[in-house]
């Protein structure tokens, strides 16, 4: 088990100041901005922000753990998103996902040991004409096949 890192608090204070006064209704926008800044939601930052804004930490954590968008652990340098939408599924999305998993040796929601890649599945990317589709960071790769996975991922190594 690695020692939890303490993230600097200053960027979070700026976010809080911009949104101030932070009401309960703004917990989701608040967490979205914090995640934009840090790439994930560091524990010490969330607790500190909760204390400063007067929002119960339990409420903030309740929201952070409910929504799929929020991560509580740092992600890898590159994020691979596999679409598990219906169109991708009928065109063989499952075999593509399996190929990504075995290429990176990680499961959905995990990060490689060298912190290079994180793997996520998404409900639908809304680009069904590219099915099956994966995204690496902001790049789309359509009409994927298991055989093409290594080639695509190698570009980011």
């Amino acid at each position, binding site marked *: 088990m690695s020692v939890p890192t303490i993230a600097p608090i200053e960027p979070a204070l700026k976010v809080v100041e911009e949104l101030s006064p932070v009401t*309960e*209704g703004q917990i989701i926008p608040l967490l979205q901005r914090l995640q934009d800044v840090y790439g994930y939601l560091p524990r010490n930052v969330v607790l500190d922000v909760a204390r400063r804004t007067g929002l119960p930490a339990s409420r903030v954590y309740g929201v952070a753990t409910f929504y799929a968008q929020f991560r509580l652990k740092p992600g890898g340098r590159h994020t691979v998103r596999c679409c598990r939408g219906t169109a991708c599924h*009928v065109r063989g999305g499952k075999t593509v996902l399996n190929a990504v998993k075995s290429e990176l040796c990680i499961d959905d929601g995990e990060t490689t040991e060298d912190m290079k890649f994180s793997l996520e599945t998404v409900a639908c990317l809304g680009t069904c004409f590219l099915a099956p589709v994966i995204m690496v960071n902001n790049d789309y790769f359509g009409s994927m096949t298991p055989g093409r996975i290594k080639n695509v991922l190698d570009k980011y190594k």
Partner: protein
Amino acid sequence: MSYPKFAAPQDLERFRKQAVEAEKRFRARVLICTTGCRSKGALEVCEALRARLGASGLDKDVAVIGAGCHGQCSLAPAVVIEPWNYLYGGVTPEDVAEIIETTLRQGKPVERLCDKANGKPAPTMGEAPFYRKQKREVLAHCGRVDPKKIEDAIARGAYVAAAKALSTMTPELVIDEVRESGLRGRGGAGFFTGVKWGFCRKAPGRPKYLICNADEGDPGAFMDRALLEGVPHQVLEGMIIAAYAIGASHGFVYVRAEYPIAVEHVGIAIRQARECGLLGKNILGSGFDFDLEVRMGAGAFVCGEETALIASLEGKRGMPRARPPFPVNQGYMDKPTTINNVETLANVPLIIEKGKDWYKTLGTPGNTGTKIFALAGKVNNTGLVEVQIGTTLREIIYDIGGGIAENRQFKAAQTGGPSGGCIPATFLDLPIDYDSLKKIGAIMGSGGLIVMDENTCMVDMARFFMDFVQQESCGKCVPCRVGTRHMLDILTRICSGEGQEGDIERLEQLGREIKAAALCGLGQTAPNPVLTTIQYFREEYEEHIRLKRCPAKECRGLFRYRIDEKACKACGLCRKHCPVQAIKGEKKVPHVIDQERCTLCGTCLEKCTFSAVLKV
């Protein structure tokens, strides 16, 4: 660019005339889809075209516009050139020189980039088979305007309907018009929009709120994304009219975070509309105040359900609550709230501008208007299709969609995402509307239409949707949280060849009970894909359970790969690419797959150029 503030409808009209005039200085407009097609390099095409036109001095009279979706996504990147209405597909930066020379200088089509009809090039959108049977009313301007410029939208009549409603109609009259037009919610349940507005208007309590539900979660549906990205002002206009009708002063656009372009375009549209005085205090001098803000969803499918969406807006976990009270009485902050889907709101300006009688000429009685379908899956022409309600599946899939990919056999169409059902071939000629779909166990839903062929396993399909619902179940009520888990476990075991006698009956019983007992729409409709596949494809379930065979050869463990000795040329491609070295063979000796090692990844099948790898 800064915009003037319109104090009265006359200012809007004056601005519209100026915008129309300003456009006339271009003799041609090149409209490149830079939303969905961005993923296939549309931005590079746009840049190349701009650079080359600039170099040749044509940029003064040819406008290059990064527009919204043209509809036929299988042509990506798709380009439309006005005034000829030529539609080009698969355009690359290398094609730019030819487009400039042939089309923009000589006015002729570049035939090799055109779609084909009966083997002949169909250069214009009117000729292309994909568009001929469509009735593009809501999508009329999608792909025809620059979504980042309000003047483009206004030149095509945006906000005329809002001005008409605010200056010449009472809110009650607006509600009557929409109710009598027969418009039904395009998000799923198909409730009459005008009736909903009427309830909200009459509900006591202030302030009232309007929410545009753009949390398009159904996998396989992308019409709301296209509308927000391509014609954001049409949606805003619908919201202004709706807010006026129900008496709301504040609104939200709740959009998925997975749609960054939509978020960006709606944000720009709101800023511009505010600058023009179309949002804010005293809109167009009518005394009506309305403003709105964008909120991003955080990746929870259940937030498409209206009470969960409200909880999410209030900063809570997105869990639904029991209805009644309905949101029209107690919604956001316990105040009367109307929630309409994007496509519904995009219909509203058309109804107000052209009238309910015109609207009723579209569709069928009781199911008026058009519906946008997101056509995807194993069909040749994928994309957004807008047809009159009451069009048959056959027309959509064969005439518009160009039939099944690789000439395979149609097996089923799935509508309505995880809440919908699978429609078998016997219903290909059934006119599709809210009521007819309900009768056969499916739902219209948001309009995702996924086509499946003989290689799609229906049991696996049911398992796929159940897995989806299981992951997205919020966990609040037992029938959904535990019941769908049980259904998923049974389906998983059937798909892995461990199905037991009685499993089908168990699924049916669980499905009926979950439908009756679940708290919200997600749970109540979750069994639909399972129940419809059992109803129409029971023999596939039985084959999985009794013979341990998957007829579509999709379920892992119920098929294997084998190399046909006669067809194998011993080229070694499969052996080279197999990631687990499961293929043995030498030069001139037909290869063999070691079934113990094989992980069923399918790479050999994909790589073989002689079709020697078979699924058995």
